């Protein structure tokens, strides 16, 4: 029982039925909040992007079209549920839930407010505060890759298959950069627990990780998380112009709705994760109003999260989709070295100032060497001394090369 109390002060006096009730209420509230916010998020995205494109957007159902998502959901549920003849039926039916469940679970670790006192028990406004905290988020985003990959593979169709290959490669390459920035935060905090990450940022804007870590991890994180979410400009997995619908091409009815739901759930959750990790979560100015002080952290959290949700929509409206090789270049050649180097510098400064500057110099040297290596690689690949015939900027694929050399032999 003692270790439970260390996780959550709610369990300090043992597990009574009141505590149990509070836990159940927290779970139900967290679930319904996420569901409700997904509906609002889809509406918000459609409205905001239509404003940015000088359109009207949804407007028929409810005031300002707020009920449009419900109408769409109802329509999707009433549609015929198709399973392609070539599909692996079990995996095909399993895949949507592999995407949905991680999306639900990740939201559970996010603290949306301070600590309340209900019936003499301290209640954290966080569904659960596991000791491994932020690792759960990484694990869950790892599992949701399985959902996307298996959905594409089990459809028995070529476009979903290509999409699942892309999804796997993309998620793996960006997860590395993502993990590295999280390591930076964990180094500074000294704890994996999300609650501790938030409390360590308390005490004003200058203590927030976005400033404290020097902006670079934040930028890397926001790029990597956008790629992790498969949102534009990194939505090569669902690139409509290349892959029809991507991994969910063959899905219809409720299973398609689940994919859609999970995607937007992830968008909200990841906005909340960014706020938690970099912007101090619910931290913010609280006026001295009696009995209502607990409301303001929640409001601050909501404002910040909606801000980032808007940023994702803004990205989608402004940026064209990356080409697949550009995506890989950005991930492997820029973000991973950058986040790794920054992590080393931060770690150096945590030990001593001298170590920090030493690490900085080392990373700078390594960065220069790496850039030179990329340059040489690019010249060998397609420069003047290149032995490979090229189309535009790219070398020809191996099959074409072989057929060309065969002709010369004849």
């Amino acid at each position: 029982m003692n270790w439970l109390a260390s996780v959550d002060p709610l369990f300090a006096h043992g597990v009574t039925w009141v505590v149990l009730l509070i836990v159940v209420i927290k779970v139900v509230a967290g679930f319904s909040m996420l569901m409700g916010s997904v509906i609002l998020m889809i509406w918000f995205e459609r409205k905001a992007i239509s404003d940015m494109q000088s359109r009207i957007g949804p407007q028929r159902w409810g005031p300002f079209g707020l009920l449009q998502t419900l109408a769409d959901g109802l329509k999707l549920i009433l549609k015929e549920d198709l399973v392609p003849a070539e599909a692996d039926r079990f995996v095909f039916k399993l895949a949507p839930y592999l995407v949905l469940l991680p999306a639900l679970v990740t939201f559970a670790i996010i603290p949306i407010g301070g600590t309340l006192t209900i019936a003499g028990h301290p209640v954290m406004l966080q569904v659960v505060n596991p000791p491994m905290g932020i690792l759960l988020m990484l694990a869950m985003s790892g599992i949701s890759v399985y959902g996307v990959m298996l959905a594409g593979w089990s459809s028995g169709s070529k476009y979903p298959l290509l999409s699942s290959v892309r999804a796997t490669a993309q998620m793996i390459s960006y997860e590395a950069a993502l993990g590295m920035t999280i390591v930076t935060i964990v180094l500074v905090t000294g704890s994996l627990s999300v609650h501790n990450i938030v409390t360590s940022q308390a005490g004003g804007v200058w203590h927030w990780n976005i400033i404290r870590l020097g902006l670079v991890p934040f930028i890397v994180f926001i790029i990597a998380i956008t790629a992790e979410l498969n949102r534009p400009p990194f939505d090569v997995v669902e690139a409509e112009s290349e892959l029809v619908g991507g991994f969910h091409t063959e899905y219809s009815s409720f299973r398609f709705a689940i994919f859609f739901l999970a995607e937007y759930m992830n968008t909200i959750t990841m906005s909340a994760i960014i706020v938690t990790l970099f912007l101090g979560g619910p931290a913010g100015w609280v006026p001295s109003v009696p009995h209502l002080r607990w409301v303001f952290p929640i409001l601050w959290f909501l404002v910040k999260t909606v801000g980032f949700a808007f940023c994702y929509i803004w990205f989608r409206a402004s940026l064209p989709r990356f080409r697949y090789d550009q995506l890989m270049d950005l991930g492997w050649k820029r973000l991973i070295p950058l986040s790794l180097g920054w992590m080393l510098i931060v770690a150096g400064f945590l030990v001593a100032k001298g170590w920090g500057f030493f690490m900085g110099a080392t990373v700078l040297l390594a960065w220069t060497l790496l850039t030179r290596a990329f340059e040489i690689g690019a010249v060998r690949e397609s420069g003047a001394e290149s032995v490979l015939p090229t189309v535009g900027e790219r070398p020809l694929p191996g099959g074409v090369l072989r057929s060309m050399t065969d002709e010369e032999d004849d």
Partner: protein
Amino acid sequence: MASPFSFFGGFKLTFQHLTRPTVTTSYPQAKRPKQPRQHGRHVLNRYEDGMEKCIGCELCAGVCPVNCIFVRGLDNPPDHPVSPGERYGYVYEINYLRCIHCDLCVEACPTQAITESKMFEFSFTNRADAIYTKAELLVDDQGFPQRLPWEDWREGEAAMTGGWMRATSPSGDASYEGVVQWTGDLGVGVRAPEAGQSDHRDDAATGSKQLRNVFPRHLEPEDVPLDQRGIAARVKSARARMPRRRKDAT
């Protein structure tokens, strides 16, 4: 080399669009004005003395890319001729399930017998209604298109038929642009030439409107006409809107 901050120009543009008015309208409730050369449902015209213009030559049927027109000509009865020519269109049918409103029939017609109105909002619930015969296509005794129960006619759509014909010069000869080469229509008389690229421009008579005058706020700043820039132009356009608002209020 562009400025490194030019990357954020795209973000600025999309953000600016948040504040701009929408281009689209909430369709069935609010309808945008139609362009004068809108391709809508066809009409068969009459001369000012009431004679039919169609001479049953079947050129429209021949040129139609989707074969939606069916025409059969017949010799004019000598005692009461239907058209001034030798023959007249005895059968004239257009299948609107196939028509793509390309206006090639209007272009092919040697007598300007077939033109298009601006009305495109018509729906039918059976295939027989989709095939318009001469009884539905021919203008009425006043020279205006017949308004069938399933068609949604709006103000001015019947008046400006044949915009396409009036817009182009024969054989693409620029010297004929704006020169009237067509006969008068029953109830309307000789129609004014459409605004072209030359100086022959009578927007009041033709109902032409340049798109840049319709949506100036969606242009780049340098593309907005000079008389529509600045506060004075805002006041002017607001004044122009005032009477319409008063009418809406009453």
